[in-house]
């Protein structure tokens, strides 16, 4: 049996057909939609490497069956930059060395974008650490990650303030 869902991925709305109800969003992205930027670290929601935004919320794409996402709006790491202009969180990760091997990085960045959007942590490093603790980093770049999220959160808040002023 095949399934067709309507999905917006990184701004492109498309009908996606797949043949298997067991397909997760992660494997749909990686193996069927040629978007391998989202990474598989554990395939059971324990590491956060597969974090993407679905309708603006950060989720573990490995725990989400694709068939449940008809009509959803998905943002992956590939959809964050605007052309050559990096998203503030991406730029901040480079600047603060918020990664080493880079494998958990797409998930860290999507999680950080989601976290900042949630609006609960502000620029409190302790809350950022807590809010980013669903994303494991075995290289242990946590210091840089926290600094990067903090800096990006500040910059994005400043931008918002400027725009509304």
């Amino acid at each position, binding site marked *: 049996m095949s399934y067709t869902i309507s999905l917006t991925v990184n701004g492109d709305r498309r009908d996606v057909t797949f*043949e*298997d109800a*067991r*397909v997760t969003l992660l*494997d749909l992205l*990686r*193996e069927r939609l*040629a*978007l*391998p*930027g*989202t*990474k*598989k*670290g*554990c*395939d*059971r929601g*324990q*590491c956060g*490497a597969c974090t993407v935004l679905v309708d603006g919320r950060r989720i573990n794409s490995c725990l989400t069956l694709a068939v449940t996402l008809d009509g959803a709006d998905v943002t*992956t*790491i*590939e959809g*964050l930059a605007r052309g050559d202009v*990096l998203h503030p969180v*991406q*730029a901040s*990760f*480079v*600047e603060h*060395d918020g*990664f*080493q*091997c*880079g*494998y*958990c*990085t*797409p998930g860290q*960045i999507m999680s950080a974008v989601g976290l900042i959007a949630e609006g609960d942590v502000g620029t409190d*490093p*302790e809350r*950022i*650490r*807590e809010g*980013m*603790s*669903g*994303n*494991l*980093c*075995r*290289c*242990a*770049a*946590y*210091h840089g*990650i*926290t600094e990067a999220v903090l800096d990006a959160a500040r910059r994005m808040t400043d931008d918002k303030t400027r725009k509304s002023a």
Partner: protein
Amino acid sequence: MSDILALAPRFGSNSGQSLTRRDGVAKVTGTATFAADNHPDGLLYAVYVPATIARGTVTHLDVAAAKAHPGVVEVITPENRPPLAGDPDSKPFMFAFRFEALQNNTVRYANQPIALVLAETFEAATEGARLLNPLYDAQQPRMGLDGDAPFTPESGGLGLPGTTVHGDIDAGHAASAQDIDVTYETPEQYHNAMETHAVVAQWNGDHVTLDIPSQAIVMQRGAFGYYFGIPPENVTIRSPYLGGGFGSKAIINGPQILAILAARMTGRPVKLMLSRDQMFGPSGHRGATRQRLRIGIDTDHRMTVLDHNSLATTSTFDTFVESAANASQGLYAAGALRSAHQGVRIDAGTPGPVRAPGEAPGSAALECAMDEMAYKAGIDPLEFRLKNYAETEPGTGKPYSSKALRDCYAQGAARFGWAGRPLAPRQMTDENGMLVGWGMGTALFAAPMFAAQARAVLRPDGTGLVETAASDMGQGAWTALAQIAADSLGLPMDRIEFRSGTSDLPDAGIAGGSAHTATAGGALHAAGTDAIRRLAELATGDPDSPLYGAGNAGVIARDGRLHARDDDTRSESFADIITRAGGAEVEGKGSASRTAEASAAHAMYSHGAVFAEVKVDPDLFQIRVTRLVGAFAAGRIINPKLTESQLMGGMIWGISFALHEEARFDQRTGRIMNADLAGYHIPVNADVSGLEVITVHEDDPHVNPLGIKGVGEIGITGTVGAIGNAIWHATGTRVRHFPIRIPDLLTGA
């Protein structure tokens, strides 16, 4: 150090700058291609079936059921597995370990592969693997450090540490005024790189292309060729990025071989990516250790003896004994020194190198024992270490190539605020009533070198090309090696192209032993220097060049030009020199390794000092590391930003060792009970705050021409002991096993 760098140490120098990672944008945009991101046309997905017993034989697999599942293409078992040219149970070269590639029905440990299922989709392969429903003839597994009688491994080679004795151990014991005799235990630990082992294999005739994370790209080309009966040049390895390695990706394992074999068998590309639980089995781990330390001191607190004996688990079918006791070599000036090792064979996979092999568990036990000795002697633990500071390598008497450890102690202690620390435990509390403890440990890691080659080319447009098959597993090779290469050519970073990460390039050696920057960087430096030498010959021998007659020694390369050394106004651009000489590229070649003479002349180590503060809840005994200050001296620092990240990562591995990591084996079944990232704890972001790294200046004229030591592993050493000691200092409870957990403090065990 070469003339070029010596004479132009700063101008245009890329080394020493905190450049951001050159692969940074690729990594934050999801365009950095890791092995499993590849998706060639006609791809088949492979899933291996892991043994669910630890010892015995497979008696039945329901192949028919698996094959009947829609999408399943092939099931490989020992019945139909095509032959390999190389025997998986042979050990044909260094870094070769025995592995399971369906050569028979025997199960040697839980999670070893017992079949491979190939399907059109990952989902079908996964279901097919489940449908095989293996039946076994299971035997009682041998588990734990008391699982079998200890044996003494023959020494020499990877994982065969042997015994080293300097001085008279009995006399050292007899001469002591005070002593301790303590035993520490450390658990099995698994690398758990975020990227699990993965391979995409494609055959074209008798040539195979492998997208595979590799810590030893050129070496593994030959190794894979051996098992498949093809020459090394018929193997192409593409490994531009590794999602972490930590030692596990230098050694070939069974699942990789099976995936490559499956690709040849089916004539289609095959992708295999291990699931997280499968990372607890066929790809190495750190064996458990039980370490007995006996330390004696005289009335002046000088060590008369340091006697370190370690027992470590290894497998029943191969030998890798964690060289934990060797951590006591090279550090403290004990009158007599012994490092002895034994192994015990259990029904687990063969251990292998895990970040800071030997040193991590060895340092954990040693640094805690040092703390115990200091407390018994009634002196400050830092003072005790200074009292036993080794001016030359203990035992051998060799001078150190450099050793800024005193500066590490001083700068780390000052930054941490160590002075005034009460000697007795349980003296400090914070404003919330938390017990506060301070502990410290010395960090030490050898500074070896492997062998590497590199090539550098100056092009007619004045740009440079440099290449060596280095591995970037997060340490920053793409950036730091390019910095070295650019300097060797006297070019800014944006005017060189750096090729790396594939097996058709010169051998960069192994990315391990904290030696990659020194080794591959040394080769790049030599290659660049050679290219500049050839370029200088062209210029100084050409009457039309302003540098004519300047002589080879009289020219330096700087910012894309050669300058006469004694007259800066005489210079010519690389492009002009090459163009006038006919426009042919100028090629230089270089290599790096350490000679036996150099090894004999000096003892070479990176050093450091780590200071830890912990806070422990007096009622609930929750433990928090609240501050961690590490001061490290590691020779010349190529990129301070990346170095700080590496050292912090190592220190967090130290937190992990001290408080989190432990694989727990079910003693009845031999299976690991916490083989996932929910049960096998590693630190999360919220576990890490108050981390500080100081890089202490150190010039080393002996270690290699660039003066580089390593920073990849030393951060773990020292840190584990510092945290263990801080917990004791906070609570008064000395825990002699790792990780230290709440129940240990509740019971005072």
